């Protein structure tokens, strides 16, 4: 089920979707969005590729095994909780540091960003894994 229109549109939409998913991830702390929604968006980009071409091509284009995404995501989430332990705080307590940018403003960095990135990767990886599994199953059938 490959159509020229879908493929042409997908060429533009997929990079935009991936970018938008990352944007959603990072804006999440202050505005609607976050790792969960971002991860789902990234997975829809992948699904679009699957429909435009096929699962094998989509996997090649993604360039990374969804298992690795899931594992990295879970490890990031776990790892983001560890620094607090070394400061004698409860596991997963958010720690923040500020990087001075300009005179009065600063770029805040915190372990929750790592945590949310981990959520993003794990969610994206899980959905991609399910989509590939189902799509490959169907392609074998055809």
């Amino acid at each position, binding site marked *: 089920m490959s159509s020229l229109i879908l493929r042409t549109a997908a060429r533009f939409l997929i990079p935009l979707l991936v970018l938008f998913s990352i944007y959603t991830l990072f804006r*999440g*702390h*202050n*505005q*609607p*969005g*976050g*790792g*969960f*929604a971002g991860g*789902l*968006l990234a*997975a*829809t980009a992948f*699904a679009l590729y699957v*429909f435009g071409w096929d699962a094998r091509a989509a996997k090649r284009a993604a360039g990374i095994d*969804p298992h690795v995404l*899931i594992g990295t*995501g*879970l490890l990031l*989430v*776990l790892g983001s*909780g560890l620094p607090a*332990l*070394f*400061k*004698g705080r*409860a*596991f*997963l307590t*958010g720690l*923040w540091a500020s990087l001075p940018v300009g005179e009065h403003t600063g770029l*805040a960095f*915190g372990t*929750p960003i790592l*945590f*949310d990135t*981990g*959520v993003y990767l*794990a*969610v994206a*990886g*899980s*959905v991609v*894994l*399910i*989509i590939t*599994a*189902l*799509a490959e*199953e*169907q392609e074998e*059938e055809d």
Partner: protein
Amino acid sequence: MGTPRPSRALRAFAALPLALLVLFLWLAATVRGARVVRLPFGAEALGLTLSFRLDGLSILFGTLISAVGVLVVLYGVTYLAGRRDLGRFFVCLSLFMASMIGVAVAENLIALFIFWELTSLTSWLLIGTDHERATVRAAALQALLVTAGGGMVMLAGFVMLGSVAGSFELTKILTMSGAIRAHSLYLPILLLIATGAFTKSAQVPFHFWLPAAMEAPTPVSAYLHSATMVKAGVFLLARLLPVLGGTEVWTTLLGLTGAITMLTGAFLAVVATDIKKILAYSTISALGSLVLLIGLGSPAAVQAAMVFLLAHTLYKAALFMVAGIIDHETGTRDIEALGGLRRAMPRTVVAAAAGALSLASFGPVLSFAGKEMIVLALSPSGRWSLALQAAVYTTATLLAAAAALVAIRPFFGTLPEGLRAHDPPAAMWLPPMILASSGVLIGIAPRGVTSLLLAPAAAAIHPDAGALLVALWHGVNAGLLMGAAAFTGGLLLFRTRTAWLRAVRPLAGITRFGPAALWQAGLDRALAFAAWQARVLQNGYLRIYLLFVIATMVLLVGVAAAAGGLRFRFSFHDALLHEIFLSAIILAASVVAVSSRSRLGSVAALGVVGYSVALLYILFSAPDLAMTQFLIETLTVILFVLVIYRLPRYTVLTRPLERTRDIALCTLAGGVIAAVVLAAASERAEPVLSRFYASHSVELAHGRNIVNVILVDFRALDTMGEITVVAVAAIGVLALLRLRPEGGRP
């Protein structure tokens, strides 16, 4: 066939125990009394801390664990040379060592429990080294179930003890012994904790796992089943003697169990024919005498226990290593098939003789001094004194015979036809030689070790036990004469073994009613029950699973809601027109979803429900929820498209009666959930929680999106659990699609 060359790199695993040995010796030289070291980890709110207690008892155990650990690693590298997965084996061994030291130095009872169960877990891996053999797997599993199960029982005791004392910290608990002994929970605490200790230290009736665990490679037996793990129970009882000890129940329970175990183990040791089994039973016997001594709890008994504990660790590890050498060089451990090896193995026989002398507790060895002290400690124990002393001498006689079985039978007499052997490399005979000769040397010159390790250990258990003196020679007295009599009796038993074995053999039938058989029967029942309930509850039909899940939910939530009483407070007068309209759409779509005759129709109707709910979220200013809901609905459609071609037509699989049941259950479930949600909405008069989040979100978590802050910061642990579930579910889907019977369809 030449002996495979041992890998030198693996010897690096000896560095860990060596470093620990140095550390513990330094601690032994510097620490006076008890020192508690706290690490900044743990959950203080729950009373769980990672803190270590360094006193005489923990330092003695730490020293023994690391010292024997060094020798076992060196011995094991050569013993196991040429096997596969040695890296994994030595990692497991190191993990076990670390867990065991954790048990010895834990200050917090819960930490002690965790280390305790870790030793069970790692010992399961170690016993199961040769996991290709079914008997090995069975033995490993049995050891795990008995010791880890005992640990669970012990945990219950710990929790009670902690609630009575108000803390899990030993320092606090040790100051509250009076209150704890007078408390009504004292008896359950004692019984539960003692059960844990008895399973670990192989006391009758939990002793059967230890001989079965002899399936482990010999280095493991030498380490776990003589020196370390089985002593954990003794350690725990010694640790808690100042808290729980001194009562009639304590003395009776431990004294009786210990004495019975001591005699049973000694008797079973003499009738066994496998060298490792002989040693295992004699270990059970030794553990019994240690429990007996701690049960008595007098200063003299505590002192005797420490001396005997050290002596036993040294000679038993040495003898296990000797047994390993015999097995390694001749290929058999059956004493009936061995003999005359002394010329072929001149070095091994020296180590064996020194170790066996210690096992027989006779001659210039530390265990002789230990046994003298045991008899002395038993003298003032009232009307039981005579019986207990008789039991000790009977045990000594039987163990002397067992020692002869181990040290005389394989090495003297005639060499059986075709048995060829020679001494192993130095890396294998040297460790048992060091251990066995230490038993002799410390026996002759006990002062240094006594003041460095034994006296502080005794003082840590009993304040009046610090003045510990070990002396080998008390002159010619009753103890010496009785010891000599027991030794000669043992040798006599050994000489006449074939004759009296024939007489006791018919008794072997009673093992059918022994604890091992009972255990097996219980385990079989449990497995049969598990299989039955799996057949009923998990029969492979998705609809049945759903039925059970929903029914359980309805039951639990419904009962809880009915018990708590739901209050409803809502009105429709402030509902806006478009909200009512949206609700009507959701209702209509739900009806379509249930009644549609085509699958596509149902899915489309469910999509309408989903998107409408997302709209509702937006109307009530929850953009995050709406966004996620939209994405989920979209992905659902995508997934559905991927599977729709593969699904069979809508078919009716159920009978009308079943359908009525399903409809009733679903209506009930929907009703319960609706009622609970409505009641929850009615309760929100005081939105304390959302106000807290709203006011603390920026200040505590640097975020203005409260939903996200809740997800990644305030309730991050929940999110972590949720995404783990998502990941597991994805892998589950993959497994369902990919793993199928050969050539079959899913």
